[in-house]
């Protein structure tokens, strides 16, 4: 799928899934669209439907109520889809690992491709993360 991925990397359309985050990564993702960062100049666009997306931005620790819905969203996505875990929560669980309601095996629900750590990651870090993904796609 090398030829496909190369075309994909020219303009990545992302869909944002909030799986029990604290909102902070989410407002920073929205911040990317506003005049200071304006990611649309890089061809990155936040889309309204999962059917249009190339990349899923997943935030949060994914509680047990939302995990099946996140799985459903992932299944509805046209493949190939790349999953980016934004924030500390998807990778390490932040401070919620003792909770009764979180999904511990988040990787089994949806396969994450890259993680962007930080609580919350700076918008610059998020742009760098997606740029890294573009690099991989271009290989």
């Amino acid at each position, binding site marked *: 799928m090398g030829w496909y991925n190369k075309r994909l990397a020219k303009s990545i359309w992302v869909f944002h899934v909030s799986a029990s985050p604290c909102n902070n990564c989410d407002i920073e993702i929205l911040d990317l669209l506003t005049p200071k960062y304006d990611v649309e100049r890089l061809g990155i666009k936040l889309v*309204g439907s999962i059917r249009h997306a190339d990349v899923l931005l997943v935030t949060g620790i994914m509680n047990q109520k939302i995990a099946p819905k996140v799985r459903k969203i992932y299944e509805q996505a046209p493949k190939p889809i790349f999953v980016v875990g934004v924030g500390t929560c998807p990778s390490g669980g932040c401070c919620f690992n003792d909770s009764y*309601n979180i999904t511990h095996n988040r990787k089994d629900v949806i396969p994450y491709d890259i993680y962007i750590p930080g609580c919350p990651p*700076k918008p610059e870090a998020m742009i760098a993360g997606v740029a890294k993904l573009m690099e991989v796609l271009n290989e």
Partner: protein
Amino acid sequence: MKLNENVNHVPVGPFHPLLEEAEYFNLTVEGETVVDIDMDIGWMHRGHEFISEQKTFTQSIFLVERICGICSTSHPLACVHAFEDVDNTDIPERAAYIRSLVGELERIHSHLLWLGLAGHFIGYDTLWMWSWKYREPVLQMMEIISGNRNHYGMMRIGGVARDVDPDRVKTLRPILDMLDKKLKMIVAAAKDDPVLKSRLKGVGVLTKQDAIEMCATGPTSRASGVPGDVRTDEPNDAYGWLDFKVIVTENGDVWDKLVVRLLEMLESTKICRQCLDKLNTVKGPILNDVKEISAGEGIGRYEAPRGEVFHYVRTDGTNRAIRHKVRAPSYVNIPTYSASCKGIPIADALITLASVDPCYCCTERALRVKGEHPDAIDFLKLSRAKTERIRREIHGH
């Protein structure tokens, strides 16, 4: 409810593209009019109270900061108030001013965030881009004070974690001056906008009676003429020594909620300026070191941007709280939908749902499902079409 062919259900959620949290609403509509609303929450439940009881006091503050990314000063502040209430711990005067400064900066950033999203919902993306552009200086000030754009980690039991030294005050002041000027411009522009006015006036009215009965707090109740504000009712930190007004309006519609928030931002810049002045003159420590907390109970209140945050802790003399209860403002504000959403056209439902500034901004987009066949009509499109229609009527083109 009696089965009626004209009644349709409009599910909103749980995932909304573009925006933040996952929430689910089920609107019952008759033609274009909303007759009933049902909500399903719990998509964001992470068990904070349970985890907090296993953490030490300092870790608890770190944890409650992560309840909400937008109120990430309000929760820790209410939490430290609760822990300080157990032993009646005093905080140094300088720490009080720093707390109030951080709290008010957060209020400005939260209200600007809401203003932008409200503009986005009704199809005014200019307003969105504008207000989020001028939200950046606030985040920059936060970064200068605490080192992070969100999640500041400033609060400690008995004071604050970091000092705002005179050099930083010098850097902050020009940014605040610039921000003040731009905020005044935004407030004047938004208040004069004829389209915004006709789109929001008289929409989603929450009467004073309903606001009292449903225990609404914050701007939601103040817009309905209920003058409740923890900052003046029970002044803690530096609020007792500062000069500011509580904005109260009478009508309870979305326009009044907008006006309350706009004017509150100006009051907040006033408070920030006073705090910065005081930080130049008030010297002293920033933290009373608290070694241990005795057995007892404590409550903490703070006026978050959305309303009153309430924390209750019970301690038993160890380094953990044995009970930690949190009541967030959105929890009491969300039920007001059942009063304010009834009988309004569905195009206005979106902005009415957003008007209480719920701690999820997910009401952005929805699919309309009729019977079993998903016949997709864009909720946002309906709202935007209405604004466009009003704009044409006013401007005549």
